[in-house]
C-alpha cells in the first residue's frame, strides 16, 4: 500500500521533471529570447550585455535549475507579446477556465450517470436507443461545431442566451472574479458549459452502461435479488457502487481533457480564460506563455492522476494487494 503510493508519487515527479525539461528547452532554444525582447536598432554589444544579464551565457544545467527554481515560485518570465509577467496573465484568466471546467464536469456527471444507469438497465427500451444514437452523433460532432450550432439556435435564432463573454463578474478574492453570483454570469456559462461537457457526458453514459450490463450479470446481484431486496436498492446500492471504479478513473482523466478542450470552447464563445491566452501564444509563437501553460496543465493532470490512483485504493479493497505487487 505504502509502496504503491510512493511509486505513484515518484512517477508523477518524473513526469513533471520531463515536462519541465521540455518546457525549458522550448523556452531557451525555440527562437532567440533576446531577439524577441529588443528592437531592430539594438547593437550587438547591447544584445550581448542583455544576454549576460539574463544569464543566457551560463551553463545550460545552471539555467535549467534556475528555470525550475523560478517555476516553483510561479516566475515564468515575461510574455513576448504583452511584455508582462506570464504568471500574472495566467493567474488573471485561470478562474474563468476553472469555473467553466467545473460547471461542465458537473453537467456531464449529473446527466451522464442517470442516463448510463437507465440505458444499462433497460437495454431494449426505445429511450435507451434514442440516448445511444444521440451519443454517437454527439461523439461525431466536433466540439466547435456543437458550439456554433448552439449559438445559432439559442443566441441568434431564439435569442435566449448570450453567445459570448462571462456576463457580470464579482470579485471574491484578489485573483478570483466569479461569474456564479450574478444572473447574467450564470446565463453566460450555460451554453459553453454544455458544449464543453457534452462529449464527457456521452463518454460517462456509455461507460456506466457497459459497466452496468457487466455487473448485473454477477453473482452478488443475483444473491441480492434472492434475498428479496427491492429493485431500487439492488440497482442503486449494489450495482451502481460496483461501476464506480472505472467511472472515477475516466472522470478524473476527462477533467484533464476538459481543461484542454476548454481552448476550443473558449474560442467559440469568446470566454476570457486561459485557453484563449494559450491559443494566442501558439499563433504568435509566444514561447514563455506556451511553456508555462504546458507546465501548469501537466501539473494539473499529474495531480488529478495521482488523486485518481489514490481513490482507487480507497474504493476497491482488492487493489490494495494486487496493485501493490504489480
Amino acid at each position, binding site marked *: 500500500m505504502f509502496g504503491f503510493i510512493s511509486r505513484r508519487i515518484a512517477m508523477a515527479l*518524473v*513526469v513533471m521533471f*520531463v*515536462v519541465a525539461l521540455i518546457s525549458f528547452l*522550448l523556452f531557451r532554444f*525555440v*527562437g532567440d529570447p533576446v531577439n524577441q525582447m529588443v528592437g531592430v536598432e539594438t547593437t550587438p554589444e547591447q544584445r550581448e550585455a542583455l544576454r549576460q544579464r539574463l544569464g543566457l551565457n551560463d551553463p545550460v544545467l545552471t539555467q535549467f535549475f534556475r528555470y525550475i527554481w523560478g517555476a516553483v515560485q510561479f516566475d515564468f518570465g515575461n510574455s513576448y507579446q504583452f511584455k508582462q509577467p506570464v504568471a500574472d496573465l495566467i493567474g488573471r484568466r485561470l478562474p474563468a477556465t476553472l469555473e467553466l471546467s467545473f460547471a461542465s464536469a458537473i453537467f456531464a456527471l449529473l446527466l451522464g450517470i442517470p442516463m448510463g444507469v437507465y440505458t444499462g438497465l433497460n437495454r431494449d427500451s426505445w429511450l435507451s436507443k434514442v440516448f445511444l444514437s444521440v451519443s*454517437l*452523433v454527439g*461523439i*461525431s*460532432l*466536433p*466540439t*466547435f*461545431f456543437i458550439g*456554433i*450550432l448552439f*449559438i*445559432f439556435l439559442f443566441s*441568434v435564432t431564439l435569442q435566449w442566451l448570450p*453567445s459570448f463573454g462571462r456576463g457580470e463578474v464579482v470579485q471574491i478574492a484578489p485573483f478570483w472574479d466569479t461569474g456564479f453570483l450574478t444572473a447574467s454570469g450564470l446565463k453566460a456559462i450555460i451554453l459553453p458549459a454544455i458544449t464543453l461537457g457534452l462529449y464527457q457526458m456521452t463518454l460517462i453514459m456509455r461507460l456506466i452502461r457497459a459497466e452496468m450490463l457487466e455487473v448485473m450479470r454477477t453473482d452478488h446481484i443475483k444473491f441480492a435479488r434472492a434475498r428479496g431486496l427491492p429493485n431500487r436498492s439492488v440497482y442503486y446500492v449494489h450495482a451502481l457502487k460496483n461501476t464506480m471504479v472505472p467511472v472515477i478513473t475516466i472522470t478524473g482523466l476527462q477533467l*484533464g*481533457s476538459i481543461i*484542454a*478542450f476548454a*481552448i*476550443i470552447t473558449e*474560442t*467559440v464563445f469568446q470566454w476570457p480564460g486561459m485557453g484563449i491566452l*494559450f*491559443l494566442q*501564444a*501558439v*499563433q504568435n*509563437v509566444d*514561447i514563455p506563455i*506556451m511553456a508555462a501553460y*504546458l507546465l501548469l*496543465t*501537466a501539473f494539473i*493532470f*499529474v495531480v488529478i*492522476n495521482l488523486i485518481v490512483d489514490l481513490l482507487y485504493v480507497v474504493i476497491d479493497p482488492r487493489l490494495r494487494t494486487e496493485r501493490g505487487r504489480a
Partner: protein
Amino acid sequence: MTDNTPTVSGSEVSAASRSALARFLDSDLLHSFLSSKITVLAAITTLGLMLAALFAPLVAPFNPFDLAQISILDARIPPIGMEWSDPRYLLGTDDQGRDLLSGILYGMRISLAVGFLSVAFAAVLGISLGLISGYVGGRTDAIIMRIAEVQLTFPAILLALLIDGIASGIFGNIDRETWAIWILTFSIGLSFWVQYARTVRGSTLVEKNKEYVQAARVIGIPAWIIMIRHVLPNVLGPVLVIATINLALAIITEATLSFLGVGVPSTQPSLGTLIRIGNDFLFSGEWWIAIFPGLALAILVLAVNLLGDWLRDALNPKLR
C-alpha cells in the same frame, strides 16, 4: 463447410488468389458487414464522400481556387429554396463569392488528405516503436513505454496544438503557406502514435514466444527481418480498427486546429477553415456558410466512426 463452396472466379485466376477471394466471399467478416444495414449505409456514404472529394475537380461545379471563376458580386448568396438564391449555387456562396458546394468538395479533399497522411504517419511510427519495444524488450522497451505513458497524460488536441506552435516557431522564417499542411500532418500524427505502439507491443509480446518466431530465430534470420516479415503480419488486425477510428479523430483534430486558426492557411481552405470563415457571418444571418461545411464534416466523421465501431465488433472474437 468451406469445401462445398462453389468457387466464383474464372480459370485464368491463379489458385492462390482464387482461394483468397472465395475465402473472403465466405468469411464471417463479409457476412457481418452485409447483415448490418447501417454499416453498409456508412460504407457507401464514406466511399461516396471520398470519391467526390478525390474527383472534386471533375465533380464540383466551380473551382474555388480559380480567381477567374469567382466574382465578389456573387458573395453571400443563400442556398436554393431561399429568397434571393441563385440556381447556379446549390448551397449558396461564401463571403468571397465562392460556390459553397465546390468549396466543401475541395475542402474535404484537404481534410481527408491530412487525415489519411497523419494516420499513416502515426501508424508507421507507432507500429515500428511497438514492434521494437515488444521484440527487443529490456531497457529499450522501458524507455519507449515511459515516453508513451507521459504522452498519454496529455490529450491529443493539446499536443497537436503545442507541436504545431513549436514547429511554426522553428520553421517560422520559411514560407508558412507551403509548410502549414505538412506541419499540421506531422503534429496530428505525432500526437496519435501511442495507441498503436501499445497495441502492437502487446501482441508482439504474445507472438514473440510462438514457435514460428523461435524457429526463424534458430535458423539465424536477423531480428529486423523476423519483426517485419513474420511478427508484423500477425499483429496488424487490431491496428486496422485503431486506424479507422483514428481517421475520424484525425479529421476532427484537423478541422479543430483549422477552426482555431493554426491549421491550414486560408488560401487552401479545409472544412474547418470554411467553418471558421462562416462563423463570422452567423450573426448577420448568413448561416449557411458555417452550417453546410459543418454538416459535411459531421456526416463524414459519423460514417467513418460507424465503420470503425462495426470493424471493432466484427474483429473481436469475444463478441461472436
